[in-house]
């Protein structure tokens, strides 16, 4: 992409921050995957001493953390169907500033 763009409207005023570029994001995912693998592999190196039976399973904390969070997100999602209301539901709550679009992001 040329740095001298004749039409400033055609793209954002500033180029994307390095952290927002797609190749950076891809690289971060790779790093994250490696870190995850290392934390699981590290279990083989340190001598774990579980106090409860299930805690002693290999990579218990990894699986438990993941599944617990998925469960909580799904539970929250389900509860949201019942309990969510528009954010000006209560009387006296300020309406969003004028000109701002409403709805999901």
């Amino acid at each position, binding site marked *: 992409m040329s740095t001298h763009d004749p039409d400033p409207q055609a793209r954002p005023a500033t180029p994307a*921050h390095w*952290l*927002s570029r797609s190749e950076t994001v891809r690289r971060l995912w790779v790093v*994250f995957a490696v*870190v*995850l693998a290392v*934390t*699981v592999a*590290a*279990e083989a*190196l*340190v*001598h*774990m*001493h579980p*106090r*409860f039976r*299930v805690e002693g399973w290999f*990579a*218990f*904390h*990894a*699986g*438990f*953390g*993941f*599944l*617990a*969070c*998925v469960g*909580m*997100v*799904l*539970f*929250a*999602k389900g*509860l*949201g169907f019942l*309990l*969510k*209301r*528009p*954010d000006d*539901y*209560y*009387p*006296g*709550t*300020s309406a*969003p500033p004028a000109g*701002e679009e*409403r*709805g*999901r*992001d």
Partner: protein
Amino acid sequence: MIELSFPPAVILILGAFLIAVARPAIRPVIVLLAPILTLWAIWRLPDGVLLTTQFLGYPIELVEAGKLQRLFATVFAIMAFAGGLFGLRQARWTELSAGYAYAAGAVGVSFAGDLITMFMFWEFMAIFSTVVVWCGGTDAARRAGVRYALMHLVGGVVLKIGIEGIMIHTGSIDIRPLDLDTVDAWIVLVGVLINAAAPPVSAWLSDAYPEASPFGSVFLSAFTTKTAVLALILLFPGAGILVWIGLFMIFYGIIYALLENDMRRILAYSIVNQVGFMVCGVGIGTEMAINGAAAHAFAHIIYKALLFMSAGAVLYQTGRRKCTDLGGLYQSMPITTACGIVGALAISAFPLTSGFVSKSLISEGAAQQGLVVVWYLLTAASAGVFLHAGIKFPWFVFFHKDSGLRPADPPWNMRAAMLLFAAACIVLGCFPGLLYGLLPYAVDYAPYTGPHVVSQLQLLLFAGLAFFVMLPAMARTRTVTLDLDWLYRVLVPRIAGGVLAAWQDLGRLLGQAWGRSGASLAERLQGWFRPHGPLAQTWPTGSMTLWVTVILVLLVVMAQRGSP
């Protein structure tokens, strides 16, 4: 024994007063000096009962010091300093003054040696925290402040009834562990739990705190719930019911924070979550768990204030408070982002942060007692904390999509306060001995063992993986989530409105039924009572005597029948 002439809280009260009346030029000096002097006074106190006096015929102990009291008072004073620094040049003076009086109440509760002193400072906090909410300055803040005040007045009345019951039935107003075998003790427990934002009234916290100003919510995050935790430690250590109340608060906080869109309300729900860990620790009641609850309160005040500061900095610089309106701020607010992330890591109990060395004491306490279910739930909840506060808050505020906003970092004093507390989170995490040395019981626990670090990293990083995998299910919506406060915010007004309308209809119907002359009920009543109306006329003395006689006879007859 040193004869003390005043409680340390008096310094902060004096500071609050001077901030209000002093010339603007010297106000910043008072703001920064008062908490430091308070801290000095706190650390001068030897252990034991140090200041007694008489109140309503009861000997009251205005100051009773011990390791636990000193720990809480210390972090309250540090918190006042950082809160004052954060709002030094931007908060209104009334707000800083009220905030310092509020902090003084918390220090006063910490050192209270009896229930009367505790109650007086308790109410002092309720009054000035309400003022802090009102300093939010909006109509929503005014309404939320009224609801907040009502909740705390009710809580105060409940607490006072319980305290009076204990005074009458035991003759003692000492603060000591109470057995839950009397109604009085239960009433005191309910009064304290209202301030801890326990179910079913947890909603007061997320209702009021996010409506305060960016500076007020930093003060609010620290004192009320943590003094309640201290009161629970002193009055109800080992009360089994607290384990389950605490666990409920923990998961309530996570689920509601996951549904929330307002960044400060996410943090408010997460206060309930964190206080849940402490309440659970008090319920477990062993030395390890009580140490954990106290240490977690200390660490929590610092990282939660830090999180509220970073949210406050964003609000101050952008005027926006909802995740749907924010995002991408890391590009122009690097210091705020970094400090927010440190706070988020600390609340998630990442190794090398303060949360790691404090929360693990509570889990360890549960494990040592063989509370298997509690331990598994606490472990799941630790993953959930990373989910709702550790990633969700920084992700949606500072990263996520680009909102197009490019605000700068906030002014120097706000940055300094954030950096101070971020440093504190890391220092306490790297040198746990600093915190462990302050705890009420000797600590025989090493947080940094290979298995503990590895299992915690697994737990948290895979919780992080779950966050990004589930991200589509967590799209922010412009919604609020109903809570039990719906009962008094919607249902009661609706019923009252219905009753009022029915009353008016009834009046109209009666008026129509009687209304040969077309007069309404009100006009008819006016007709009876107006000057020279039937009920306003002078009646003959004879008829009055007659009626008095009739009433007297009735009374005598009833008294006869009533007597055995």
